[in-house]
C-alpha cells in the first residue's frame, strides 16, 4: 500500500520512535515537560518539512508522507505526534496556503525546518465547535495601521514552548449583513499584551504544550493579516479538513500501538499455567483490535490520497477522523484490559495510550461535529 519511499520513511520514523522517543517519554509525561531534545532531533530529520516544497526548506514530500510519519510516532507516543501534527497542519500550513509572500518568507523557513513552532488559535473559553461564535476582536487602528486585539483563546497546542514564535489568531474583524466577519491575524510570541497562561493539568498528551492565551490591547502591524480580510472562516475550515486526516493517522498509530503492546504482553504474561495469549478471549480481543486498526488506516489512506491528487476529500477526512478516533478509544480500553492491573499503572505504555485516546474524539472537531459534516455532505 505504501510506495517504496513512504515505506522507507515509515521504517526510519519507527526506528527513531523506538530508539529516541520510547526510552525517555514516560518521564516527560510524568513530569509534564516538553521534550525539546526529541523535537530537535525530529527537526533534524526534516519531519516538520515533510509536506512543504524545497523552496522553503521543506522535504518536497506531501501530506500523505506527513501522515505516515505521524502514525509511526503515535504508535509509540501521542504527545510528540500531536506536537508534529499541530506544528505542521495547524501552524505552518495556513501560512503556506494563505500567507502573503512576505509572511511566507518571514515565517516558513524557521517553521518548515522545525527550529521554531507556530500555533493556531481558534477555540475560545466559550466557543469550540461553534467556531463562528468567536468573541476575540481585532480592530484596525487606521492612525498607526495596526490591529488591536482583545480576547482570549483556550486549549492552544504548541503556543507556549521556548521555540514558539507565532500564533495565528482567529478574530472578529467586523460585521457584514449581521454576520460576523472573521479574519486570521499572525501574532508573534512576546508581543506586549499577549499573555500565555500556565499550562493546563491534562488527562493525556502530558508531554505536549497546551495553553490558554489572553490578548489585552495587543498591537500588530496591519500586514499581519493572514491572506485576505474576512476569509478567516474559510481558511480555518480548510485547515481543519486537512488536519482531520492527520488526526486520523495519529489515532491509527495509537490503535496500532495498542495491538503491539497487547501482543507482546499476551505472549509473556502467564495465568492459570499458560500465557494469557492462549485464551481465546484474549486472542479475539487482539484480532478485533487489529481489524479496527487496519480499517482506520485504510480510511485515512483514502482521504490522504484524495487530498494529494486534488480530489474532494472533506467527507472522507471526516469519516477517517471519526472512525479512527473512536476505534483508538476502544483499542486503548481493550489493551488496558489485557494488561490487567499493570494496565492501570502509568509506567506501562498502554496506560498512556488510554489517557491519550479520549482527546482524539474531541480535538479538531468532536465526533458529533464529524457526523454533522458527513450528514451535511450527504445532503441532509
Amino acid at each position, binding site marked *: 500500500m505504501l510506495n517504496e519511499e513512504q515505506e*522507507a520513511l515509515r521504517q526510519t520514523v519507527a526506528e527513531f520512535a523506538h530508539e529516541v522517543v520510547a526510552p525517555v517519554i514516560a518521564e516527560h509525561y510524568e513530569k509534564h515537560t516538553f521534550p525539546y531534545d526529541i523535537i530537535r532531533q525530529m527537526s533534524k530529520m526534516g*519531519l516538520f518539512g515533510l509536506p512543504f516544497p524545497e523552496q522553503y526548506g521543506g522535504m*518536497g514530500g506531501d501530506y500523505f508522507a506527513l501522515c505516515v510519519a505521524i502514525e509511526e510516532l503515535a504508535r509509540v507516543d501521542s504527545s510528540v505526534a500531536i506536537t508534529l501534527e499541530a506544528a505542521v497542519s495547524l501552524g505552518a500550513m495556513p501560512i503556506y496556503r494563505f500567507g502573503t509572500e512576505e509572511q511566507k518568507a518571514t515565517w516558513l523557513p524557521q517553521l518548515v525546518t522545525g527550529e521554531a513552532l507556530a500555533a493556531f488559535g481558534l477555540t475560545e473559553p466559550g466557543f469550540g465547535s461553534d467556531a463562528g461564535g468567536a468573541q476575540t476582536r481585532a480592530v484596525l487602528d487606521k492612525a498607526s495601521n495596526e490591529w488591536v486585539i482583545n480576547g482570549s483563546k483556550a486549549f492552544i497546542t504548541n503556543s507556549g514552548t521556548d521555540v514558539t514564535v507565532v500564533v495565528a489568531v482567529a478574530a472578529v474583524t467586523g460585521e457584514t449583513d449581521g454576520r460576523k466577519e472573521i479574519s486570521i491575524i499572525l501574532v508573534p510570541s512576546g508581543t506586549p499584551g499577549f499573555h500565555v497562561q500556565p499550562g493546563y493539568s491534562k488527562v493525556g498528551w502530558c508531554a505536549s504544550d497546551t495553553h490558554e492565551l489572553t490578548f489585552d490591547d495587543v498591537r500588530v502591524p496591519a500586514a499581519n493579516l493572514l491572506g485576505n480580510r474576512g476569509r478567516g472562516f474559510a481558511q480555518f475550515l480548510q485547515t481543519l479538513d486537512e488536519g482531520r486526516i492527520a488526526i486520523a493517522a495519529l489515532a491509527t498509530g495509537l490503535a496500532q500501538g495498542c495491538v503491539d503492546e497487547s501482543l507482546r504482553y499476551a505472549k509473556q504474561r502467564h495465568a492459570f499455567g499458560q500465557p494469557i495469549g492462549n485464551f481465546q478471549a484474549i486472542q479475539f480481543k487482539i484480532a478485533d483490535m487489529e481489524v479496527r486498526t487496519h480499517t482506520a488506516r485504510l480510511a485515512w489512506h483514502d482521504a490522504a490520497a484524495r487530498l494529494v491528487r486534488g480530489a474532494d476529500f472533506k467527507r472522507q477526512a471526516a469519516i477517517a477522523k471519526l472512525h479512527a478516533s473512536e476505534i483508538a478509544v476502544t483499542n486503548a480500553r481493550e489493551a488496558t484490559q489485557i494488561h490487567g492491573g499493570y494496565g492501570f499503572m502509568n509506567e506501562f505504555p498502554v496506560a498512556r495510550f488510554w489517557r491519550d485516546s479520549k482527546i482524539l474524539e474531541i480535538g479538531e472537531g468532536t465526533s458529533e461535529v464529524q457526523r454533522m459534516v458527513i450528514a451535511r455532505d450527504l445532503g441532509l
Partner: protein
Amino acid sequence: MKIVVLVKQVPDSGAERNLRSDDSTVDRDSANNVINEMDEYAIEEALKLREAHGGEVTILTMGPERAAESIRKALSMGPDKAVHVLDDALHGSCALATSKVLAAALKTLEPDLVIAGAESTDARGQVLPHMLAERLGAAALTGARKLTVDGATLTIERQTEEGYEVVTASTPAVVSVWDTINEPRYPSFKGIMEAKKKPVQTLSLGDLGIDAGEVGFGGASTAVVEHARRPPRQGGTRVNDDGEGGVKLVEFLVSEKFV
C-alpha cells in the same frame, strides 16, 4: 577528499540469527538483514568530513543481491554514490579473500580515506581494516573514537581498554571507528527520495580481475568445521558476606576489568 565507506549487510543482532545447516554460512533468508550498526557511524563520520572539508563519499559493499537494500538505506543518509561487488562465486569467502576483493575495488576508486566500522556484528573479527590497509599500502588507524583531519594529516584517538592512544598518519589511510565516535543521523525524506536517483555501480569478480577460485569456499583460508548454539546462560556467582564480601566483590570487578 575522496572517502569510501565500507558497508556490510548483516543479520540484525537484536533478532534471532542462525547459521545454515548445509554450508555453515549465515542464514540470510531467515534473518532481518540490516546495515552493520558500526558502519552507520562510519557513514556519519564520512558525511561530517565532507560537510567540513568538501569532497565525495562513496559506499562500497560486497554482498549478495539483497544487500542492495542496505546500500539504498546507506545512500539515504547522504553519501554520493555506491559500488556493489556482486558475484555468486563470492559466497563462502573468508576474511582474507574478502579483503582481496575489497582492496581490488578500492584501487579502482582511489580514495584518500577509507572508513569502516571497527567490527561487524556477525563475524566480529575486527581484521578487515588491517588487511585492507596492508593490501593498499595505506596507513591503518583502527578503533577510533575520534578522528580529526588537517590537510593530509589524520589523527585518531584509538580506543583501548585502559583509555585511548593518539595515533597520527597521513593519507591514504584506512580508519575504523567505534560507536563512541559520533551519533549517526536518521535519513530525511529528501535523503530517501534522492537515494533512488544516486548511481550504484555493480562490479563482478571479472571486472576486478579476480579469479573465482581465489574466493568463495574454494579460496577460503579458514573453514567452519562445526557449529552449535551458544549454551544457555549460566546462573551468576553468588557472594555470601562472611566478612570478606566487599573484598570478593572488588576481586570480581577487577577480574572482569570493571575497575
